[in-house]
């Protein structure tokens, strides 16, 4: 994760809902801060604690698991 002056948020998202939601936000031109990065998974069931801890270790300020 690159650090920046604004909060770095890493989101683990399900392809079928939250990723589609982020796509819809784009299509609808809903503006939000640039510090958000998405990691696309086929299901948030794939997210284990290790990923979350690693993300924090690498400097994420916040995490979102959405699916």
């Amino acid at each position, binding site marked *: *994760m*690159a650090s920046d002056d604004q909060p770095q948020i890493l989101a683990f998202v399900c392809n079928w809902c939250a990723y589609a939601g982020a*796509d819809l936000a784009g*299509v609808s031109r809903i503006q939000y801060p*640039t510090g958000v990065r998405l990691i696309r998974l*086929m299901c948030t069931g794939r997210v284990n604690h290790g990923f979350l801890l690693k993300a924090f270790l690498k400097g994420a300020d916040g995490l979102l698991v959405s699916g």
Partner: protein
Amino acid sequence: MTQKTRLTAQAEKTGSVTVIGSGIAGIQAALDVASSGFRVHLVEEKANVGGVMAQLDKTFPTNDCSSCMMGPKIAKLATHPDIEILAYTDVLGLNGEPGRFQVTLKKKARAVDPQKCVACNICAEKCPQKVPDPFNMHLQPRKAIYIPYPQAVPLVYTIDKEHCIYFKKGKCRVCEKVCNNKAILFDQEDEIITLETGALILAGGLELFDARRKQEYGYGRWPNVITSLQYERMLSAAGPFRGRIQRLSDGQRPGRIAWIQCVGSRDSHLGNDYCSSVCCMSATKQAMITREHSLDIDTTIFFIDMRAHGKGFDRFYERSASDNTVRYVRSLISRVVPNPEDDSLCITYCEPDRSLRDETYDMVVLSVGLCPNPSTVQLAKVIGVPLNEQGFIASQPLDIVATAKPGVYVCGGAQGPKDIPDSVQQGSSAAAQATAVLADSRGSLVAVPRSLPQRDVSAEAPSIGVFVCHCGVNIAGVVDVEAVADFARKLSNVTYATHCMFACSTDQLREMQQAISDHQLNRVVVASCTPRTHEPIFRKTLQEAGLNPYLFELANIREHDSWVHQAEPEAATQKAKELVRMSVSRARLLEPLYEGSYEVVQSALVIGGGLAGLSAALSFAQQGFEATLVERTAELGGNARTLAYTEDGSSPARYVQDLIEEVENQPLITVCKEAQVTSTVGSCGDFTSQIADKNGSRSISHGVVVVATGGQEYKPTEYLYGRHPRVVTQKEFEDLLQAAPEKAKQLQHVTMIQCVGSREPEFLYCSRVCCTAAVKNSLQLKTINPDAQISVLYRDIRTFGFKETAYLQARRQGVRFYRFELDRKPEVTRHADTLLVSVFDAQLQTTVQLPSDLVVLSAAIRPRPESRELAETLRLPLDEDGFFMEAHPKLRPLDFAAPGFFLCGLAQGPKFADESISQARGAVSRALAVLSRKKIATDSMINRVDAQLCRACGECEKACCFEAIKVKQVDSGRQQAVVTAAQCTGCGVCNVACPTGAASLAHYKDEQINRMIED
């Protein structure tokens, strides 16, 4: 038949089906037909597919997002190799005979070259002409060159020639100038083509009632009176107001909204005497969602009868009415009066005590009815298919997808007003009926998948190519794409990086293939838009360039970057670089994946020998597949045997007798009576079941299971039933009318009580058929004895759709209807040797005494008690009421979530005989996607187990929701977790549960994800 004559017969029929109309019914029909070995021509008069469902915000009773649900279906439609989408095309004529039709079509000129248009939207941005937007129900304008919504399929722009300045005045051509791809073709001409096709499915959908015809409600005159579909667009986050509820007069948020029901429905004055079936639930949904948007908005629905007759609807309605979430007022509204000062609207309604009351609203939503689509009506005339009295395509009693013309079928709104699940199951049913005629030519016209040689890259170090897309100005207008490409070039293992105008355009894809070969790339990263729409295109390009398609990664720098950070070009460029770096890191670790496959046992197991099960078994046989039909009792036919007649003049009892004969004489069907399924193991396409009967148990192999175990009439404990001979159920009354009409003729006073055992707190569902049954039996008694006095005590009359006409007829013939409330139910007492029914009429607000010779109870439909045991045997879910639960109440009403299992008939929920038959065939249609293939391909992105690391602890097995991973003894003799590829969905839950790291999901391995997090 000899081999030679068989081949001739095969050649005689065309192995394709033409589906006309591409709403949800047409889409379902197309997908089912194409998935069972036939080619599909999907014809749509509009520029893009999707129909009304694409315009909806949410759908009842789950309030799921409509376009999210439709997305996967449309994506499948767009990429299916055997579906040709002919959008913006009219049907001109039909010749020939069933099995060998010729359809003449006019492909209307879009004035845009579909091969060149990449939907960058630059033309629409620059187009100077604003025109009304029918997709958004005219709430906001669109441009003369357009796509209706961003996810439209086909994703090609169209010039609206009626409004285009160039086509009207001969000047402008702005779009031509700004189109980078030279896709604008002003002189493109309509093209007339003729297709050979075996059968036709009409799925032309509906049109909304024109609310201006109800002048008293002021639609078109008062700005804050809008239609239900306009409100739907208003609620949609992707709609013109981005989901903000506002008054059209001043853009202010309304404080109070009223819905008026039955606008253009149940209205004989307008000639629309039928019920539109969906509006009660649609208004309920809209009001609930309004309250979810903001609790400050008061919502009131003015209605006549609350028609919540579908599965899960009553629970939905009760939930909306509880806690005063939505206020319901039972009153016809005669007019809407505007207040010009603040554009508010006054509605006068009738209180239960019959006094009149005025209320002021900020906005009024008219729940407009569903009418025949004029173009379908026109088409029906052209091809010679008769319409019914209401102007919809007439279908056959008990065979609701068959038109009067052989080889031509109908489904969805074209057949009559209906909701999404009914449209979907009819779509499937029409697919089954259309393909049954063509069964001999299955597979004759389908595309043979090309097998392309793949380069073995296992020994090569990663050599990554990065392609950064401008997407016209969509990305390049915000992100410095050149800088991103330069950045990518410096990343390790990146051998080649470039930027291009439209990565997905045909010429650029060719260049990508060239680059793969020139630079010996073995991984590709494209930084462009969403993988949800574009991943398949790029994967295909890799395949054509000789690379495994899974060696590809997309970085979404459009939806997740340039579009959402429009005002911050620098930060957006920085983010794009980081997204590319993350993707490159992941790409280094990508591995080629290959699909597996296994053989399909091409036969079916049907459980239940009633109307649905018999229909399903016969339908399998008509399609050329063997079926085993297992019936628990000694006799086939189920409930239908006692259904002597219906309100539309058919006789399920006679029908089922013929059906039984046909099934028993059908060589492809094995009937097992007094038998039960005691176990089923295996997976989709390859099951083994044990069937036990009095002679013992035997084992059969089959590819699919259809559950059609039926339901039964509730035996009431209330209203003196079983304690007085003159209290009978509706079914018993029907028997009496049939078996002893002379005795029935003696009856002078008959009282019917509705909702006995239905819509009660512990059975919170509507049994769907009882209102129509009461009306039908009343009319029958009136035929036998016109002087009989019949009183029907009801809570809401739910004669939905065309059944409303039977209700009207009953009223006209003097059948009396008294409405009671749940908390003041009627009382039945003995009165000499007859009965006295006392009811508090909620409309008259007075108690009515009804001396009765006979009391008829409309008893609920209950699931069969044995379904619980079967559900455990098959590991299938039941709903809260004990009926079998489908995979999704809207879009997968006939599938179980477990692959290879399907359901139909009363086992799924209360329904009419014709609906059971239709569902049964629909379930077969769904099952054909499995049975019509010799082999099933398994997904590649599934879990693998590392035998070295697995210690057989079983955590994965416990975690898996799909029974796809189990600890078993393997060939080496040791215990190990084994994945059933056919059942694994690739969710990765087992990876999380696995303590040793033995379970590893292909394409989403720990290190593949970790590397993205690290970067």
